[in-house]
């Protein structure tokens, strides 16, 4: 069965620190990959996505993620975080042969100290 693993459930950083959130998935076929973000009190928003092409994708608010197929990974990065990046981050994957249903990671709660 498909699954998504996010390595850290809670991350605390200071402003201007660099961020990397890990995401690994288990699935042998072709997948689409996503990072969603949920700011406090707000709904889930798409941060970035990978369907095909350049494995380094850029999203909103300075975030980027790199798809490494050999490692089944799609890690999220940001070179310098801001207090406003405090949120919960979810990695998710889908595939055509599972009706494009999203398989979700458990989420990572990111707290940025001002």
């Amino acid at each position, binding site marked *: 069965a498909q699954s998504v693993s996010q390595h850290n459930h809670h991350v605390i950083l200071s402003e201007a620190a660099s961020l990397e959130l890990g995401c690994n998935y288990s699935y042998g076929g072709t997948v689409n990959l996503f990072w969603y973000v949920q700011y406090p009190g707000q709904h889930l928003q*798409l941060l970035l*996505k990978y369907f095909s092409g350049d494995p380094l994708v850029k999203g909103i608010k300075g975030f980027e993620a790199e798809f490494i197929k050999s490692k089944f990974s799609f890690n999220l990065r940001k070179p310098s975080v801001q207090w406003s990046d405090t949120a919960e981050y*979810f990695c*998710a994957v889908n595939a055509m042969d599972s009706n*494009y249903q999203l398989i979700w*990671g*458990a989420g990572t709660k990111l707290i940025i100290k001002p």
Partner: protein
Amino acid sequence: EAGVAQSPRYKIIEKRQSVAFWCNPISGHATLYWYQQILGQGPKLLIQFQNNGVVDDSQLPKDRFSAERLKGVDSTLKIQPAKLEDSAVYLCASSLWGYEQYFGPGTRLTVT
């Protein structure tokens, strides 16, 4: 472009009562999803529609939950009767088939 609309935003009911949630997807999105999200967890898919047909409802507790999308646009999710463990946020999302999902603000349900 208008996003996914949901109502109500909050609902408090007693156990064994019934409740209904409404969702209006983004115009043109044929695929609609209902999720249950418990605090600290990722969303759990309850049901997926393609137009007005059900693609997957394998995780919908059919003894108490029901959902419909009669005209292939709006959808309602009902719980009858509610249990304490149904306290959660109920999310609606829509998409074009195969593409990213867009989420509504959710309905926070508290069952007392």
